[in-house]
């Protein structure tokens, strides 16, 4: 994925194989010899963490599918069967359910890192777009996975989200009936969600390959936000970054396993341990935490069509970042004003998440409205204007200079002055 390979096969068998399928050379040039900027910090380890989590979700998911029954009369009981009867079923299910949360946790950090350091800017726009596609696929996959246990929150979450499509003028109702395969969420809906929930992670894996391919054309962005020029700017992927990524992964897994073994139901809605009842809506419908900011945006607008459109816009606007952010300087380390607006944006997203978890009344709705306004202001007004009017700090001459000081002394300089 990164041009010429420096891999030289030694044994006769390796030479024979490499001349027929140069895959070892590809892996070597991509993940062993690949030159990474030497200043990558720990925020850059979440790509590797996400790859691991995707693999973990696929492995636990394939195994769970061996015991799960996608039939509306049996689905709920088959989950309890997994929890109580299947050997290690409780572990596999808790690992899978909490794994989805950990995937989104890592994904959001990965995205915020990209926004802070301007990783979406030229020449990495396509890399960013592929990431947005992965985000969209992950949203769809997790949503359909949550429906499978067929509890009250599964059923009503599915009803509310699929009903968003009824907001489309003229054809909305037909589209919703088509999605449901009936006149309400029912067995047909459950069946197709299971089919697609199994399919989409493999599509994500495919887009991840493209994402890594696009990444390796120009290599990673870095905290200084300037491109690598000489060998002095880089270190080889192995052992420097395999070890760094590995250490970060272990720390991440501590959090993940703590969730799985100590508070496995902490993020799970207790209403979902009640079997789906199409005639009774739970008093308070809340989606999983990773959808809450978008849910808050949906609820903050008192019009169904505009609310739905605004929510979809809040997701899709992320794809336009490379063109909305007009600043030539990538890293927020050299953009004093942008850094303030960025952290306000992070706070805005977190607060929107809180508003989404609260009942849709009075002060919560009002606060969500203000936050929604800032969310869109950040993308549509602040970013385009900052590029014009912000006075940025001078960039270091090279990545090497940024790390080791201007005169080549081995003195660590602050990249974040």
């Amino acid at each position, binding site marked *: 994925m990164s041009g010429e390979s420096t891999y030289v096969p030694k044994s006769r068998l390796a030479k024979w194989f490499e001349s027929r399928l140069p895959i070892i050379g590809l892996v070597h040039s991509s993940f062993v010899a690949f030159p990474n900027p030497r200043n990558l910090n720990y925020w850059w380890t979440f790509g590797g963490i996400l790859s691991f989590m995707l693999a973990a979700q696929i492995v636990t998911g394939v195994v769970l599918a061996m015991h799960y029954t996608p039939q509306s009369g049996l689905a709920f009981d088959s989950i309890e069967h997994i929890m109580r009867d299947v050997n290690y079923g409780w572990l596999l299910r808790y690992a899978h359910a909490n794994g989805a949360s950990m995937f989104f946790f890592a994904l959001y950090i990965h995205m915020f890192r990209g926004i802070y350091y301007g990783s979406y800017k030229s020449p990495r726009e396509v890399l960013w777009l592929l990431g947005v596609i992965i985000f969209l696929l992950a949203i769809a996959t997790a949503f359909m996975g949550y429906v499978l246990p067929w509890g009250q929150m599964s059923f*009503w979450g599915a*009803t*509310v*989200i*699929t*009903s*968003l499509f*009824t907001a489309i003028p003229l054809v909305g109702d037909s589209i919703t*009936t*088509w*999605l*449901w*395969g*009936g*006149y*309400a969420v*029912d067995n*047909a809906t459950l069946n*197709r969600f299971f089919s697609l929930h199994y399919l989409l992670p493999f599509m994500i894996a495919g887009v991840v390959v493209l994402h890594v391919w696009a990444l390796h054309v120009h290599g990673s962005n870095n905290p200084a936000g300037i491109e690598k020029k000489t060998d002095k700017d880089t270190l080889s992927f192995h052992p420097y970054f395999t070890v760094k990524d590995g250490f970060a992964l272990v720390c991440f897994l501590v959090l993940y396993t703590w969730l799985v073994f100590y508070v496995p139901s902490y993020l799970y809605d207790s209403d979902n341990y009640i079997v789906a009842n*199409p*005639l*009774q*809506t*739970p*008093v*308070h*419908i809340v989606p999983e935490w990773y959808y809450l900011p978008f849910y808050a945006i949906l*609820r903050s*607008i*008192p*019009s*169904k*069509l505009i*609310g739905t459109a605004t929510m979809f816009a809040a997701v899709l606007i992320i794809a336009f970042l490379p063109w909305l952010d007009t600043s030539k300087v990538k890293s927020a380390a050299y953009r004093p004003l942008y850094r303030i607006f960025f952290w306000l944006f992070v706070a805005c997203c977190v607060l929107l998440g809180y508003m989404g978890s609260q009942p*849709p*009344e009075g002060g919560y709705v009002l606060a969500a409205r203000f936050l929604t306004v800032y969310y869109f202001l950040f993308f549509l007004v602040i970013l385009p204007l900052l590029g014009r009017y912000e006075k940025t700090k001078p960039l270091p001459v090279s990545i090497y200079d940024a790390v080791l000081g201007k005169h080549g002394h081995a003195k660590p300089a602050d990249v974040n002055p």
Partner: protein
Amino acid sequence: MAASAIEDEPTRRDFVFVATGAMGVVAAGFAAWPLIDQMNPDATTLAAALTEVDIGNIAEGQIVTVKWRGKPIFISHRTATEVEAARAVPLSELRDPASDESRVQKPEWLIVIGICTHLGCVPLKNAGPFEGGYFCPCHGSVYDASGRIRQGPAPYNLYLPPYKFENDTKLTIG
């Protein structure tokens, strides 16, 4: 290719190329349709379309829920004051203007699909600021005793199912 070939464009070959491509697109469309249409409601879903209800023992002021096509149907035996209040509202005050008379066959019986027109939750019966009205707990839509949207994000009144009174105590929905 020789210069003369370019001057002669469009050639027979161009025509065949475009025609073949067009036929390919049409064929792909026909091949895709079964893959798309299989997701629409199947024959068993379409068949389960009639529900009969005995309304003789629904007391005045009571609202009961029955299931039709997998959806909840609210059958409301309205009191005289509820009907009066619903009919006193000027249409100009309504988001989705409809007179109470146009929404019922008999004034004391309101029969609506119990699904909020916002995002499909089932509203609570006899709840919210209107007597004999409905309140959706999901996003706070308020409906009056005629099932008309009065506050909150829902755009339309509660929908009316097709129904018929067979006699004083028997109702057929569908």
